[in-house]
């Protein structure tokens, strides 16, 4: 058996983390909002699908501490582990993007579920052609997945202190940047940039960042011990 697909199969054994929990989160969020929309006279727009993306960020963080020790314990190389894990993330990213697109279609087809309830086909998010919608979902998904994996790999490689330092740096940089943006009135320009660009363009901008995070995660995992 191919060494990379073995790692993917190992991940797929954990059906809760990869299938059931995310499906439940979206399912519950959808059901509750649908129920609310039944009692509303005006249309209901909700950002419930954001939970899918928050969740994959969490999975990116959790997958390494959960499975890296076992994979290495069973004699996998770190490289094979990384490739198998990244491919699992890519496969789920592609699948999620297509499912979200399909559900968006279904939403339009059912005339917003008959209750003017907008969950999967949101303005700004689900505009544009099918390929663009799938691409933007996929790109955001991968960005969050590798960001999570990057955090987990930092922890693996450098221990818990490195995370505290990173957090500290992130807070300081964020505060300073926020202050500068306020001081020099950049916010307006930033909002305008987001408003004038489609989500596809915005998500394409994550691509270089995603690549950097993915490569850095690989570099750190390769030197990690269990």
């Amino acid at each position, binding site marked *: 058996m191919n060494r990379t697909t073995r790692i993917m199969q190992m991940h797929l054994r954990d059906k809760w983390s990869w299938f059931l929990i995310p499906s439940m989160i979206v399912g519950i969020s959808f059901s509750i909002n649908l129920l609310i929309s039944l009692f509303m006279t005006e249309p209901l727009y909700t950002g419930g699908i954001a939970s899918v993306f928050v969740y994959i960020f969490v999975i990116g963080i959790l997958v390494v501490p959960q499975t890296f020790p076992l994979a290495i314990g*069973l004699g996998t190389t770190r490289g094979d582990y990384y490739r198998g894990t990244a491919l699992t993330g890519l496969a789920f990213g592609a699948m999620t993007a297509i499912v979200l697109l399909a559900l968006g279609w279904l939403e339009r087809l059912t005339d917003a579920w008959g209750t003017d309830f907008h969950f999967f086909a949101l303005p700004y998010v689900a505009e544009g052609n099918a390929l663009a919608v799938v691409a933007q979902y996929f790109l955001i998904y991968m960005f969050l997945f590798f960001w999570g994996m990057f955090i987990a790999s930092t922890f693996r490689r450098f221990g818990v202190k490195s995370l505290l330092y990173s957090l500290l740096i992130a807070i300081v940089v964020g505060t300073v940047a926020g202050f500068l943006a306020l001081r020099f009135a950049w916010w307006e320009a930033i909002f305008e940039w987001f408003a004038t660009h489609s989500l596809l363009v915005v998500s394409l901008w994550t691509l270089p960042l995603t690549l950097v995070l993915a490569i850095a995660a690989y570099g750190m995992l390769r030197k990690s*011990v269990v």
Partner: protein
Amino acid sequence: MRTIVEVREVSKRYKDNMAVDRVSFTLEEGKIYGMLGRNGAGKTTIMQLLTAQAIPSDGEIRLFGEAPYENARVLGQVCFIKESQKYPDNFKVADALAVAAMFFPNWDASYAEALRQQYNLPERRQIKKLSRGMLSAVGIIIGLASRAPLTIFDEPYLGLDAVARRMFYDQLMADYIEHPRTVVLSTHLIDEVSRLLEHVLVIDRGRILINEEAESLRQQAFAVAGPMNKVETFAQGMKVIQRDPLGALLTATVLGSLGPEQRHRAEELGLEFAPVSLQELIVQLTKNQSEGKAAERV
């Protein structure tokens, strides 16, 4: 016999602590090795270095003639069962065994299933809900059923009772005879495993103190038993490392090999020879050697 592991002058430094200090040894194909030593002596670190789970600060390691780090060809032939092995939270016993089956080319699924039943491991139980002993049993099953050419058990019996430990030793021996491979057994329960071991490596404070065939180690001492005064007479001028009195009787453990002359004298005195415990012997040798080393440093 083919050498499958070569460790040359390997050290592992953690910040202010020399966990492994210029260690060299080789392991040959088709033998059972005991890696013995106290907790914190560096046994686990050495095994982690062998399996590329840790990276040496210095020195060279060769497994099956190649460097093990990121080497799938080499690591695929090694199964390292360690006491602290972690499993994903959502994994059941069946998941762990199924995943192990994918990673070891010689995996024997029916043997694994038979072992699972012998250890009463519920297939559908989550691993994180297993007791300490059951968790150890998962490792033991993976280690045995993997049939890896180099199988390493690091304190595999934690939480197992004496009966289950005995079961493990018997299974290991039986399977080893049928499917010879190199086994490294790291333990501090020396007496329990002593009949299994063909070669003994004793680690102390990151160094190798003893690296010897178990048989020749056993011949380095003998125990003699009989009435106290007669034993004392016999042992006069010999290096007695242990005295176990029992009423008017005494068993003395004597360092040195037993020659025909001494055997003859003991017979005249009506004394009997008893097997010497490997554990006792190693404790004594370790004590002597570390004292010697301490003296050297001064």
